[in-house]
Structures are given as structure tokens and as C-alpha cells.
């Protein structure tokens, strides 16, 4: 365990000093601040940030994570030539990527909320926004490990990372809508429900929109979710599904990491 913490400590230092991570933090900072200046109230800023969080966090987490892992390949080999177990190194690497990415988001969004006093009256919504952002970071960082360990070639890996993001954040909902129109004469609520559970970005959306009672506004999936679960159960189910979305890719990535020939 102490080896994991040592590795994590140095990974954190390395990643926190990364230029792109600083840019990522500033992006959230400037955007959130600007939304406060133009839009005003905390609840409206949270709503505006929803779509940014749902698209940007998965994109940055998976692309930054994949690139970082390709870049660190020889360093990983050097570490594995030390008296270090593969499991420890994997844990250190995952923590060293996910923690700085999550912290960047928390700071970038949290600070403007603090100095504009936007949390008062919106505490639950704000907490859910931060929670969904952190969970999506964990999910897509785990997916970055799967992608980077699956493809030897870094151009292929980057392509696959972008494709995963495109599928989850953009194409999935379109395909779902298409399916709904095709099968409109059949009862499709239950399959749609299942389909939502299968996409982490949709889960994040459900989590956020159930909170605002705007689910009907933001697409079919939210509406179905609300009708079947009601707010509280829906929140818990989507939360659990997001955790599963972290655990399963992480276990898969770890398995590959343990077996891989470097």
C-alpha cells in the first residue's frame, strides 16, 4: 500500500505540473466566471454548465489519459524493472491521472461559485454537478487505460479514444432516437431504459436533469427515467450504474496491464 502512495505522490506532482492540465483548469474557471457575469443566478449557471460537463469532461479525460499513457510507456517499463508489483503501479498511474483531472474540474468550477456566492440555495444541484463531473472523470480515465493498453500504436489509440467519446457523447443519443422512431409501434420504454444505463454520458445527464425537473425538456431518456424511477430512485440507480462504469473498465484495464508484455 505504501508503494502505491509513493508512486501516486510522484505521479500527482508530475501531472499537476502538466501544461494542458493547467489550461483545462483555466477553461472551467473562465467559463464559469463568465456565465456568472452574463447570466447571473447560480441555478442558471449550473444548468448552462451541464452540457459542457457532459461533453468536455469525457473528451478531455479519455484523450489526455490515453496520450499520457502512451507518453509514459518507457517510464512504466523502467518502473516495472524496479522491485514494484504491477498492481501497485497500475493503481498509482490511475490515481495519478484521475485525481488531477477531477481536481482541475472541481477547482475550475468551484472557485467562481465561491466568489460569486452561487452555492447558496442551489447546494444540492451544485453538489450533483460536481459529483457527476467527478464520476465522468473516473469513468473516462478508466476507459483511457483500456484504449491505451488495447492498441500498441498511438495513432490508433488516439483514434479509438476519440471514437469512444464520439459514440458516448454524440452518436449514441442519435442512434437511440432513430431506434425509437423505427419501433414507435412497440412498447420501447424498457429497452430505452436499459440503453440509457449502457451509456455513461446519458447516465450523467439523467443524474443532472432529474435534479432540475427538466427531464422532459432534455430528451426522451430523461423522461422515461423520471417516469419509471421518480427522482430519488433514478438518482441512486444512475449513480450505481456510473460506479459500475468505473469499476468494469478499470478491472479490464488492470487485467490487461497485469498480462501485458512491455
Amino acid at each position: 500500500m505504501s508503494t502505491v502512495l509513493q508512486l501516486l505522490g510522484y505521479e500527482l506532482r508530475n501531472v499537476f505540473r502538466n501544461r494542458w492540465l493547467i489550461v483545462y483548469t483555466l477553461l472551467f474557471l473562465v467559463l464559469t466566471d463568465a456565465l456568472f457575469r452574463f447570466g447571473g443566478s447560480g441555478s442558471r449557471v449550473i444548468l448552462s454548465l451541464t452540457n459542457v460537463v457532459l461533453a468536455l469532461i469525457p473528451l478531455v479525460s479519455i484523450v489526455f489519459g490515453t496520450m499520457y499513457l502512451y507518453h509514459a510507456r518507457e517510464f512504466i517499463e523502467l518502473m516495472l524493472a524496479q522491485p514494484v508489483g504491477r498492481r501497485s503501479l497500475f493503481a498509482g498511474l490511475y490515481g495519478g491521472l484521475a485525481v488531477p483531472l477531477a481536481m482541475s474540474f472541481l477547482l475550475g468550477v468551484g472557485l467562481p461559485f465561491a466568489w460569486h456566492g452561487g452555492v447558496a440555495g442551489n447546494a444540492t444541484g451544485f453538489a450533483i454537478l460536481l459529483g457527476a463531473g467527478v464520476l465522468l472523470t473516473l469513468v473516462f480515465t478508466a476507459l483511457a487505460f483500456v484504449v491505451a493498453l488495447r492498441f500498441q500504436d498511438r495513432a490508433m489509440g488516439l483514434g479509438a479514444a476519440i471514437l469512444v467519446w464520439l459514440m458516448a457523447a454524440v452518436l449514441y443519443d442519435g442512434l437511440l432516437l432513430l431506434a425509437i422512431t423505427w419501433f414507435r409501434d412497440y412498447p420501447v420504454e424498457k429497452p430505452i431504459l436499459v440503453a440509457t444505463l449502457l451509456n455513461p454520458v446519458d447516465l450523467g445527464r439523467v443524474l443532472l436533469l432529474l435534479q432540475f425537473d427538466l427531464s422532459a425538456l432534455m430528451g426522451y431518456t430523461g423522461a422515461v427515467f423520471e417516469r419509471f424511477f421518480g427522482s430519488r430512485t433514478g438518482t441512486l440507480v444512475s449513480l450505481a450504474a456510473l460506479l459500475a462504469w468505473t469499476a468494469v473498465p478499470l478491472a479490464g484495464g488492470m487485467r490487461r496491464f497485469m498480462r501485458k508484455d512491455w
Partner: protein
Amino acid sequence: MSHATTAPAALRISGVAKRFGKLQVLESVDSVLPEGRVTAIVGPNAAGKSTLIKCVLGLVRPDAGRIEVFGEPVGTDPAYRARIGYMPQGAPFPENLTGHEVLRLVRSLRPGVTEVDDDLVHRFALGPELGKPIRTLSGGTRQKLNAVVAFLFRPSLVILDEPTAGLDPLASSILKEKVQEATDRGVTVLLTSHIMSEIEALASEVLFLVEGKVHFQGTMEQLRRTTGEQRLEHAVARLMRARVA
């Protein structure tokens, strides 16, 4: 090869095979590295030199065979690597850490070790560079740090992959001295290099690998006698031609 059976073995490789997809990279490699000597792995490109080293380090898991480092089998327990110092190609340290942080990082991975050998830091006059982030260091300076890490824990087995690549002549001679001193103390060294004069200066044993098979293993003297060539470059060239013919 007579002494190889009498001297205690630092490294014992038996029947090691590895296939990547369709490519049989190593084909039943047997080799014993006598303790306290410098062995150079020589061979054409894609002969399996790096794969063999990676098998010893546990980075690549062989399909068949067994490797022992000072009697400890290479397997899932990483503890045997505490006695190995490794100098990989290209000095791949995290860009945003400083030299000091890199040294502290590798030290933290061996919590039992209190005393280290940082004599190379002084000999390379590396002190002032250690406070700077790795990304600002030149290739040569990184390679010096790489050498420091390899010798830091007084390893019993040192594995050097193209060690003098990127080093200036002075630094390169300092490193060769260090290798010499280490072997005088009984340290075993495994070396790969494209520079034949370097191998001639350092190594007393040669392991000649072609297409994943050991084609020759013995002392430099035996190699000269077998091939009738005095210079290593010619001897190796002769071995390679003999294989083709």
C-alpha cells in the same frame, strides 16, 4: 564455456521461448551468465536482444522456459528485482519531475535501503542539474541521470541497454570506469551496444543471438579463436556470414 559451469551463476536462462503473434522472437534460449563478469549480447537487428533483457526484468513473460536471477525464479514476485540495476534506452523519466524527485522516487520503491551509491552524481558533476525539471535537460544529462539510477542501489546485476548513447567522450569514459569498478567488486553486468569497441573494452563474455537462438556463447578469447579474427567487429561479421552460408 568451461568456466560457466564452474563459476556461480548470476543469471540462468533455460529453454526460454517467446512468440509475438506470428513472429517467434526467442526460440529456446539457454544461457548461464557467470557472476562478476561483463557479458555483451550481440546480434543483428531483431535478433531478440531486447526481448531477452525484458524477459529477465519480468517485463515480458516467456511462453516457455525458466529464468533465475541469483537463484530466484523470475515470476510474479517482484522482490528479485531489488538486486538489479537497469539502464534503459532513452532515459524515460517523467518530464515535470526534477532529478532530485526522480532519485527520491526510485529510493521510495526500496524502503529497506538506507545507503545508496550516488558517487556518479559527483563524477558527472550532475549536482546543479538535479534541481531542474527533466524536460529542460539535454539528452546527455538525462542519460547521466539514467546511469546514476542504475548504480544507485549497489546492484548485484547491472543491465545496460546502449549505455553510452548520447554521452560525450568524458562522461562515457566515466561510465566505463564505473562498470569496471563494479565488476572488480564482483558485480555482474549484462550489456547491449552497437559500438563494438565499447564491447571490446568492457566485456569479457559474448552472447551471440540470431533470430532468437544462441549461436555462440563464450569468452572474447574463445570468440577470437573460433573465428580466427582479432577484432570483434570482424569476428562478429564472420559469425553472421557463417550463419548465412
